[in-house]
């Protein structure tokens, strides 16, 4: 990039015009740097640099060979994260918010001709299309790679939801409903959302905070078994693995390196941190 000149060149003989041009160029260069850096920042060699800092990079692997599409993960996630109960009518209108849900995906992982039931949570892309377009930074990527959502800042424009190629961000069409005494069994670690904001899978980020507090209290580093999202715990066949992708020894790193591994819509360049394993 051209190095920006001084804002106003006072030495220039022909006075203001050259100064004006230089100021304009400098402003353009500055604007370019401001605009492009955040876009590239998420894409380029960040995971590597963060590995050097010793920060984890949380990721998930879903083994389709083990998954029976029983929806235990969906139910566990809904309870863990205080999701609105919803109704059959809402589900029929496409307004049921389940952060991990089972979708019939055709030609999954490049296999021709078949339709496979696939559990789809937020893919926590390394290059997330939703983060780029958010006008208020309500959706962002945290230093450990989790794509977060600030409910109290979200204006409900639904641009991120439109930009997501996986259709796995959700909008609160109405005030959430918990009939009867359901609300009394809310998870106190997770804030319920209000109508009009976007919500999404956060890899049960509150569990990470709990695990980190516990590890700190015990004066040790966080271990892989300390932080496990609800869907992983609930899966009866152990099809979902979770852990630190920056740690080559972690089980999730090794599974993600398997020859069976693929990612959804890989050629879009979003670089998901959720990998899938093909059926054997």
């Amino acid at each position, binding site marked *: 990039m051209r190095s920006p000149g001084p804002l106003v060149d006072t030495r220039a003989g022909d006075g203001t015009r050259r100064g004006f041009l230089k100021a304009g160029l400098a402003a353009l260069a500055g604007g370019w740097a401001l605009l492009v850096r*955040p876009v590239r920042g998420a894409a380029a060699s960040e995971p590597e640099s963060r590995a050097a800092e010793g920060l984890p990079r949380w990721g998930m692997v879903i083994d389709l060979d083990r998954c029976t599409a029983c929806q235990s993960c969906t139910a566990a996630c809904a309870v863990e994260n205080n999701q609105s109960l919803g109704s059959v009518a809402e589900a029929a209108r496409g307004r049921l918010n389940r952060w991990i849900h089972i979708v019939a995906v055709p030609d999954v992982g490049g296999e021709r001709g078949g339709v496979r039931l696939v559990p789809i949570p937020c893919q926590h892309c390394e290059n997330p299309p939703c983060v*780029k377009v958010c006008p*208020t930074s309500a959706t962002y990527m945290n230093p450990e790679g989790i794509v977060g959502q600030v409910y109290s800042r979200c*204006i409900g424009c639904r641009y991120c939801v*439109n930009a997501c190629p996986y259709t796995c961000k959700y909008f609160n069409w109405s005030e959430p409903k918990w009939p009867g005494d359901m609300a009394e069994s809310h998870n106190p670690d997770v804030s319920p959302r209000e109508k009009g904001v976007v919500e999404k899978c956060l890899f049960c980020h509150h569990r990470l905070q709990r695990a980190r507090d516990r590890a700190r209290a015990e004066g040790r580093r966080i271990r892989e078994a300390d932080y496990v999202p609800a869907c992983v715990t609930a899966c009866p066949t152990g099809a979902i693995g979770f852990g630190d992708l920056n740690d080559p020894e972690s089980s999730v790193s090794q599974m993600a390196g398997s020859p069976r591994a693929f990612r959804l819509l890989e050629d879009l360049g979003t670089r998901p941190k959720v990998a899938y394993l093909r059926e054997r």
Partner: protein
Amino acid sequence: MTDPRVLAAEKAAIAPLESAPGPGGLAFAGALGLLFAGALGAWGWQLLNGLEVTGLNSPVFWGVYITDFVFFVGVSHAGTLISAILRITDARWRTPYTRMAEMITIASLPFAATCVIVDLGRPERALNVILYPHLTSPILWDVVCISTYVTCSCLYFYTALIPDLAFCRDRWATRAGWRHWLYMVAALEWTDTPLQRRVHNRIMTGMSIALLGLVISVHTNVGFIFGMTIKPGWHTAIIGPYFVIGAALQGLGGLGLIGVILRRVLRLEPFINEHHLNQLRRFTIALICFWTYFTVAELLTTYYGGIPPEMLVFWSKVTGPFAWSFWGMILGCAVIPFILLVFQPGRLTAMLAWSGALINIGMWLERYTIVVPTAASPFIHTLARSYVPSWVEVMISVGWLAGFALLLASFMRVFPVLTLWELREEVEEEHAAEHGAPES
């Protein structure tokens, strides 16, 4: 200033300011007001219940409100684009149209901006876009562009109005009432000295050039909202320029329709003559050709490439569930107006009005055809779902249109509908040319 043409124009432009609205006019305004009030009520209902009351769903997260937004921004292009282009190129036939076109712009922009607010899930947090700006978001670019555009359009409208406000001030100098005060304050002590005229002309030219850039940036950015995503049907480089040319066509169509209506209602026939109508007709035909060229370029490129997710959207438009809006767009924007304007099967005024109406319907359908089919065909296409707007969305859309018409009609009662000072200049130049005197 004794030229009879100028005197007649002054009389015609001042007439709606001097007379009280008749019973027909009051009934018309009342009906529009009711529709707008109904829309406000519907919005209240939506604020209470959330966007649940719309037909939107996952994955069709955007629908009629966003279509309306792009539509109203398109309407606004009548003023700035038409009057700025014609001022810069010094096209003489612009004179009877410029004020009208600028009024259309100012009247449509509030409704364009509020369409987006209506679409928000948390409209009370709209300011977060400025409080917590995220520079990579095309929505932020749009907020910057549109607020600049609104400000400049208002200034442009006002600057062009000053000499005419002074004319009104002199007319109302000895009368009581709010008009006396309004015109006195707003005319900024304009006394029509040669110096004032020279400065005024320079400012108008400068603003015209600046506005031309702004108009292009505004609609390009509206297109970028879609173009910057990676969705099939949205992610195309042509979408910015395509939106600009569409908005220009729509603005011109709107001017054709509203111009013909006002010509009849306000008795402007002596000032908008066959020549003016004919120039507008030619300009519209040219833009129809441009628009068709862009449409064909986009469709052919998509079809020839044949990338599966793109083709899913393509066929849903051409033969699928959105064929009605796609072919409606082709007929409304291009085919029928082209036939009407080129072969003129009826009177020129009727042809301009009909094609103007059709172009506007067609351009609304164009935006609908861009927004909804792409949203309805997600990459994981087993998640596809259709969309039918709800009564709330329909009421708000209709009410917003009524509100626009009402605001435009009220402008007619406050400001002269013809740009009198430009007309005077034109007549003076003609006189100078007739008498062989050099232009001063």
